[in-house]
C-alpha cells in the first residue's frame, strides 16, 4: 500500500519536469537548547494524530577517512542495537507502521521518524535505541556492503548517473563533493567494522545534533519522551575538521564523451563551480538560475530547447549550495543526433545571460515565484520537520522562513548580471556526454 511509488513512476506521465521549487509563512516554532549542547526545534500541530521527529547529525562524506563510511553508518543504525537484533527492529518498524528515513547529504546526515500518535512511545523508544545504542554487527555490515555494491553497479548503468559522476569527479577531484555519498563500488571491500565504529563514536554525539519535533505531541510529552533521553546521553565535544574543495584552473573547456551504443538519447551534463550556502550571492543566483533553467517550462533553456524546438523532454539547470561551494550545472537528454545542436543552444543562453540584463518582467516573475512558492516547500509536517534543522545547520536564522521574501526582494538587476558573470563559466566549463556518438 505504501510501495506504489515505483509503479507510479512507470504508469504515470507528467508533462513537466520540475527541478527546484523555492517566499512566507508565520511559523511559531520553539527552540530549546539542552545542557549537552543538543537543540530541539518544536512545533505543535494537532490536526492529525501523527508525529515526526528528525535529527540532523553534522557528519557526512566531508568527515570520512574512507568513502562510503558516512552512508554505511547511517544505513546500519537500524541493523542491531545492544538489546535488539536487526530482525527485531525490522519487525517492530513494520508492525508499528512507523518509518525511519535516513538521508546522507554531502554536508550532514538526517534521520526522520514518522509515527502515529497511538504508537508514539514505542516508536520513540526504538528511535533512540537505534540512535544511541547501535552495535553494527559484522554479519549485517557484510550484507549491507554487498547490497550497496550491487546497487552502485546498477546505478552505474544509468546514463544520468554516469554523466553526473564523471562531471563531479572532474570538477572536485578527490574532494568528497566529487563522489556520490554512497561511495564507489571498488572502495567498499576495504571497509571494516572498526571504520564504522570509529565514525559513529566520533561524530554521533548529541552535543552537535539538531532535533526537530513536529505534530501531535504536547510540551510535557516532549520533555519526558524526547528531551530526557537526549539529556541523559553523554557524548564528546566534536569539532569537524573539514576542508573546502580546490578547483583546478583550466584555460579551455573540458569535453568528455562516454560511448554507450545501446542508448537512443544522449545525456548531457554541462557545468562549473557554484557557490556555498553562506555566499552573499545565494539569492541572486537563485533568481538567475530560475530564469535560466530552474523555472520549469518557463525558463529560457526550456523555451529554447523544449518548447520551441521539441528537442528534449527534460532540461534544467540547478546548483548545490553546500557548506563549501558545490556545482552549478545543466542537464538535458536529447536524441543522439541533436547533441551538438543542444550544446550550442545552451552555450548561447549562457552567453546571453552574461552579456545582457534580464528583463524586468523576468525579474518580477522570478521573484514572485520564489517568494510565493516558499510555503509549498514546507506544506507538510514532514517537510517542516526536515527543514527546521537544516535552517539551523546552515546558520540561516530562526526568522529565515519569515525573511526569505525580503532577501529575494533585495536582489537587483545588477546583482543578477554580476552573479551570471561570476558563475557562468563559458570559457572553461566541463561537459560530459553519455550516448551513442
Amino acid at each position, binding site marked *: 500500500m505504501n510501495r506504489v511509488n515505483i509503479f507510479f513512476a512507470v504508469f504515470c506521465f507528467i*508533462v513537466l519536469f520540475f527541478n527546484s521549487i523555492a517566499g512566507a509563512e508565520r511559523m511559531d516554532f520553539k527552540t530549546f537548547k539542552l545542557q549537552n549542547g543538543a537543540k530541539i526545534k518544536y512545533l505543535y500541530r494537532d490536526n492529525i494524530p501523527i508525529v515526526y521527529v528528525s535529527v540532523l547529525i553534522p557528519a557526512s562524506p566531508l568527515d570520512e577517512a574512507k568513502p562510503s563510511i558516512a552512508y554505511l553508518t547511517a544505513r546500519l543504525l537500524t541493523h542491531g542495537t545492544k538489546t535488539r537484533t536487526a530482525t527485531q527492529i525490522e519487525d517492530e518498524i513494520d508492525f508499528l507502521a512507523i518509518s525511519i528515513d535516513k538521508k546522507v547529504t554531502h554536508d550532514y546526515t538526517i534521520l526522520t521518524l514518522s509515527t502515529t500518535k497511538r504508537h508514539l512511545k514505542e516508536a520513540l523508544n526504538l528511535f533512540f535505541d537505534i540512535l544511541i545504542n547501535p552495535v553494527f554487527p559484522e554479519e549485517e555490515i557484510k550484507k549491507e556492503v554487498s547490497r550497496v555494491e550491487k546497487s552502485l553497479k546498477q546505478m552505474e548503468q544509468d546514463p544520468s548517473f554516469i554523466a553526473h559522476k564523471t562531471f563531479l569527479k572532474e570538477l572536485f577531484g578527490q574532494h568528497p563533493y566529487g563522489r556520490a555519498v554512497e561511495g564507489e563500488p571498488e572502495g567498499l571491500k576495504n571497509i571494516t567494522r572498526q571504520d564504522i565504529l570509529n565514525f559513529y563514536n566520533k561524530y554521533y554525539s548529541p552535543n552537535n545534533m539538531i532535533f526537530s519535533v513536529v505534530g501531535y505531541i504536547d510540551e510535557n510529552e516532549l520533555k519526558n519522551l524526547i528531551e530526557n533521553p537526549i539529556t541523559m546521553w553523554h557524548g564528546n565535544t566534536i569539532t569537524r575538521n573539514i576542508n573546502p574543495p580546490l578547483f583546478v584552473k583550466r584555460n579551455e573547456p573540458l569535453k568528455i564523451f562516454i560511448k554507450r551504443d545501446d542508448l537512443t538519447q544522449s545525456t548531457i551534463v554541462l557545468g562549473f563551480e557554484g557557490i556555498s550556502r553562506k555566499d552573499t550571492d545565494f539569492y541572486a543566483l537563485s533568481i538567475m538560475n530560475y530564469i535560466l533553467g530552474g523555472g520549469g517550462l518557463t525558463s529560457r533553456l526550456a523555451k529554447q530547447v523544449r518548447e520551441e524546438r521539441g528537442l528534449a523532454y527534460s532540461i534544467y539547470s540547478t546548483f548545490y549550495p553546500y557548506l563549501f561551494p558545490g556545482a552549478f550545472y545543466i542537464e538535458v537528454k536529447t536524441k543522439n543526433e541533436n547533441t551538438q545542436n543542444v550544446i550550442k543552444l545552451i552555450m548561447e543562453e549562457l552567453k546571453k545571460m552574461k552579456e545582457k540584463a534580464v528583463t524586468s518582467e523576468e525579474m518580477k516573475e522570478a521573484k514572485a515565484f520564489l517568494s510565493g512558492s516558499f510555503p509549498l516547500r514546507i506544506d507538510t509536517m514532514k517537510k517542516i520537520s526536515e527543514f527546521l534543522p537544516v535552517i539551523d545547520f546552515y546558520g540561516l536564522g530562526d526568522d529565515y522562513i519569515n525573511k526569505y521574501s525580503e532577501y529575494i526582494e533585495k536582489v537587483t538587476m545588477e546583482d543578477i548580471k554580476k552573479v551570471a558573470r561570476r558563475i557562468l563559466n563559458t570559457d572553461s566549463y566541463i561537459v560530459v556526454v553519455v550516448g551513442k556518438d
Partner: protein
Amino acid sequence: MKHLVLSLIFILIFPFMGFSEIKEEVLDNGLKVIYIEDHSSPVATFQVWYKVGAIDEPEGKSGISHLLEHLMFRGSKNYPGNVFSKIVQSQGGIDNAFTTKDYTVYFQKLSPSKLQTSIDLESDRMANLLFNLEDFELEKKIVLEERRQRYEDDPESLIIEEVLGIAFKQHPYRKPVIGWSEDIQTITLNDIKNYYHKYYCPHNAFIIVAGDIKVTEVREKIKEKFENISSCDVPSRKILYEPKQYGEKRVILKRQTHLPMLVMAYKVPAYPNRDSLYLEVLSTILGEGKSSRLYRKLVNETALAVDVSTGNSALSRDGFLFFIVVSVKDVGKINEVEKIVKEEIEKIKNEAPSDIEIEKARNQVEASFLFSQDSVFGHALYIGKFEILGSWKMIDRYREDIMKVTADDVQKVAKKYFNFDNLTVGELLPK
C-alpha cells in the same frame, strides 16, 4: 485475545479518522466539485480530474490521452500561447498534470488567495482549448523524447511495458500510457480534437479544491466560471473484457543492465470487488517492508536479491495486475529466485497468515491513511482516486472493510489468483 480486542477498537474508531471537512456539490451542467477544508498549512490545491486514460483509447491511437495532456498547456481561447505555467508560476504557484491508465489530472499548488488564477485557466481550457498544428507537432516530438528517456533507454520500465503487453491479450491495459511510438507518430490533430470533445466535458470530469479555503468564497468563483460550460453526454464506454488465459506467459528482455530483474504479474480484480481488499493485505504480508515474507527470504536469508517489492492496484477502473518485482543479484540465480517466490506463495495457500501479520497490515493501513492527510495535495489525490471509481464516499466503506480482512480471506485470494494460468513473468537480463 489481545489482538482481537485491538481489532474491535479499530473498527470502532477508524471510520472517524478523517480530519478535514469534505463537501461536494454537482453544478447544473453535471460537473461535480469536491471541497476539502484543511487549514493546517497556508496552501491550496486545485485539481481537475478527467475520467479518461489509456483504458479509453481506440486501437491504433495509444498515447492519445497523454498527448492531449501535453497540448492542454499550449493555450486556450482567452489564454492563447504557451502561457499557462508562466501565469501560475508568476503567482507563486506550481502547475503540472499527469495521465494514468484510468484518468488524467491537471493541478496547481498555490496560495489560497490565488485560486482565481486556477479557476480562470482551468475553466478556459476545459471549454476552449486551441488546437494549433505547429504546437501539436512540437508536442509529439517532445513526447517521443519522453518515451526514449523513460522507456527505450530505461530497461526497468521497458520490461514492465513488455509484461503488460503480453499479460493482456485484448484488454486496453496492455497498452502503455505513453503510447507506442508508431501510434504517437500517426495520431492527427483531428483525432485529438475529437478525443477532447468527447471526454473533456463537465459530465466526465470533477474538480477537487483543497487546503486553507473558505468553501462559500471559492464555491461562488467556481460556479461563475465553470457552470456555463456546455453540458455533454457521458461518453459511451465499451464493455471491456479479457479472454481467459491459458498457461503461464513469459517475456525475456536482454539489455545493458547490471542487476537482472524478475517481474511476476497475476491478473486480479479491482475495488469494489472485495477480493481486491484481501489482495491489498496479501501485498503487505508478502512484499511491503523489511519484515515481509519475500524481503526476509530473498534479501536477508538467502541474499539472492537486492530488493523486493509487491504492488496491488485495487483502485483501478478495471481489474489489473498484482506485481512482484525482484532485483536479483546474480543472473545465474534468477530461476532460483522465481522458485522461492512460488514456494512462498504456496506457503500462504497452505497455511493462513498469522494474527500478527494481519494486525501489522491493519496498522499499516491506518498509518498510511493518516500520513496521506499530512499533505493537502496527497489527500486530494487519495479522494480523487475513489471518485474515479464512482464516489469518494466509498472511502469510508473501503477503510472499514479492509480493517475486517481475516487470515482466511487472504489465504482464499492467494489460492484463487496466484496460479500458473493467471501469471505473466518478465525477466530482464544483462546483454
